[in-house]
């Protein structure tokens, strides 16, 4: 098993880039991008369709349109509208992110609870060389801290590497890297996963059928993620991939290391996105300067497709989690993509602007979405999955962590609306999650157990 792990280690490089949420108000660019401002200016009717928070009924949008057409441009109105718009990101976008995160977590928890493979300790990844089987607490702690340091440094190195590649426009290399890693992920991990699930439920399956199923799944996945495809399908694939990655993490990270790593990663995320020299921040800024979508990769876009089946040229902005499979290097890297809500569909917008008004309206609706990095999904799911796997309070702890993470996500989105730039999505949620996990496991569980045994209700 150890040799197997080594092989797959060298292959699997789940690259989760830093996750950050960025607001939609990107730096001034073609008028098409300044959707809200443009509409304020009373331009073409097409621009009027502003994305509003879901709490607003369609009526208000219509009203706004009418009022805009009648009123000349006012600076103050512009600013007000702008603010309102960003704050209206509110409910709708939060929900658009809640659903996939919830789904991912549900998949992970369901698998952990039912398939025993993922909770067995069958060796460790090569990135966490120190074992945690030591007898003394101090030694164990030390080992886990060392593991964390190694893991984080690997992540940092790979992120910097990625940013450098991006800066020097080695797009082909990056593309190849991503394709390779997503290939590995889609095929190998799915194979393992399916194998384990079938084993658990004692379903017999022959190799040809399995091969066919996995081939179809993988091929459609590759197409969907890297090229065009229906939005829902792509989202589903991204969720699946994140869940698979999370499962791998849960299985192969030793106990304490996992928690320390989660904590360290959120700190790193905070720094990488907010510090001026942080790699992720540079990535995002470079992408914005060049007016390109950030990566054919790692971000989950929640943009709703109002017109089903419309082939969108902007599929490049969504992508799978970056799995870099550096066969040469035996390091695993974790890149988490930056998630941003920037309307970076700029270059995709330009072809759109030549289309008739109705379709551009539709396009506008669908492109304003919040984007969240896949690494975020993965680490949230790792937290919840670990809670499900190792907590003795079982479902209570899992539920508590779940709610904590969702609230963290809400708060982060709120901050996003306030600050209007890329924000790390991890720290708040992970902090809440960790706090709730440890406190629920140690404090609430005995309380609830005692209550339940006496059948008392509070």
């Amino acid at each position, binding site marked *: 098993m150890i040799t197997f792990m080594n092989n797959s280690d060298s292959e699997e490089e789940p690259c989760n880039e830093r996750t950050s949420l960025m607001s939609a108000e990107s730096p001034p660019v073609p008028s098409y991008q300044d959707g809200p401002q443009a509409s304020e200016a009373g331009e073409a009717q097409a621009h009027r369709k502003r994305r509003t928070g879901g709490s*607003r009924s369609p009526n208000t949008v219509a*009203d706004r349109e009418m009022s805009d057409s009648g009123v000349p441009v006012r600076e103050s109105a512009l600013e007000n509208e702008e603010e309102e718009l960003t704050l209206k990101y509110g*409910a709708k976008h*939060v929900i658009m992110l809640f659903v996939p995160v919830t789904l991912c977590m549900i998949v992970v928890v369901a698998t952990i609870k039912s398939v025993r493979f993922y909770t067995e300790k069958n060796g460790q990844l090569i990135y966490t060389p120190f074992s945690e089987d030591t007898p003394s607490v101090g030694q164990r702690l030390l080992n886990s801290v060392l593991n964390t340091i190694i893991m984080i440094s690997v992540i940092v190195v790979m992120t910097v590497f990625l940013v450098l590649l991006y800066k020097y426009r080695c797009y082909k290399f990056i593309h190849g890297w991503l394709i390779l890693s997503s290939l590995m992920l889609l095929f190998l991990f799915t194979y393992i996963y399916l194998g384990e699930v079938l084993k658990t439920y004692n379903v017999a399956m022959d190799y040809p059928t399995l091969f066919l199923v996995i081939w179809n799944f993988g091929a459609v996945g590759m197409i969907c993620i890297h090229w065009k495809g229906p939005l829902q399908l792509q989202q589903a694939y991204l969720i699946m991939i994140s869940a698979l990655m999370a499962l791998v993490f849960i299985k192969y990270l030793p106990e304490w290391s996992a928690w320390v790593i989660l904590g360290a990663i959120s700190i790193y995320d905070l720094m990488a996105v907010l510090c001026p020299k942080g790699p992720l921040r540079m990535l995002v800024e470079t992408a914005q300067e060049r007016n390109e979508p950030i990566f054919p990769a790692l971000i989950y876009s929640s943009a709703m497709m109002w017109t089903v089946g419309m082939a969108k040229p902007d599929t490049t902005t969504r992508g799978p989690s970056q799995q870099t499979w550096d066969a040469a290097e035996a390091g695993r890297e974790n890149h988490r993509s930056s998630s941003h809500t920037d309307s970076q569909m700029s270059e995709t917008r330009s072809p759109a602007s030549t289309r008739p008004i109705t379709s551009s309206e539709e396009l506008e609706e669908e492109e304003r979405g919040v984007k969240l990095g896949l690494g975020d999904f993965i680490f949230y799911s790792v937290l919840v999955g670990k809670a499900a796997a190792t907590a003795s309070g079982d479902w209570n702890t899992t539920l508590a962590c779940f*709610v904590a993470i969702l609230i963290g996500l*809400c708060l982060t989105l709120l901050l996003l609306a306030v600050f209007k730039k890329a924000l790390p999505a991890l720290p708040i949620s992970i902090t809440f999650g960790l706090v709730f996990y440890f406190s629920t496991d140690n*404090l609430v569980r005995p*309380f*609830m157990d005692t209550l339940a045994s006496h059948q*008392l209700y509070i």
Partner: protein
Amino acid sequence: PALGLFLFTIARDPLRIIILIAGAFFWLVSLLLSSLIWFIAVRASNPQDEPLQKGLLIFGVMFSVLLQEVFRFLYYKLLRKAIEGLVALSDDGCSPISIQQMAYVAGVGFGLMSGAFSMINLLADSLGPGTVGIHGDSQLYFLTSAFMTMVLIFLHTFWGVLFFHGCEHRRWWEIAAVVIMHLTVSGSTFCNPLYVGSLVPSYLLMASAAAWAYLVSGGSAQNLRRFLLCK
């Protein structure tokens, strides 16, 4: 039934979902704090002493109830602020969601969380093999737990409405009534496993709370009749 409530009334509107989750979060925090207190108390006391443990447990329960109500109040304050924010944001000066709806959703949030915490381990265990009540406990354990949980969830919902209404109109007696009802219900569960002592009063209280909440939300017997006859 709670899930039905959720699906039909809350799942449509994203703002409500957020309020729901936030409500659940607040309940969770209150639970955390109360269990912290209980834990400390237990650690500090003699674990062998049975009546003392029982007494501590009762104390823990009461304290937890009080804390829940405190958190409900805090949540109310937060929602008030949020409503002001939403009103400022909206076009026509009125908030997209009224305080009553928020009260309802908050109540459901509390209720769901409380119900989930009470029931879910039970449900998980019930999937496994075993016999109920083999050690001489009641055989109706699961059933009564289910009913009790359901009544608690509903009660939380109604209390949410009543509580917010009381805060809005500054009727302290309403708030006090909610708190007392909560205490009574929790207290009545001390009679378990004498189920008649706990389930029946709880249901009665729930019915009265339901009627009260309905009246408070502006309903009336007339509306009810019209609704039923409108079939």
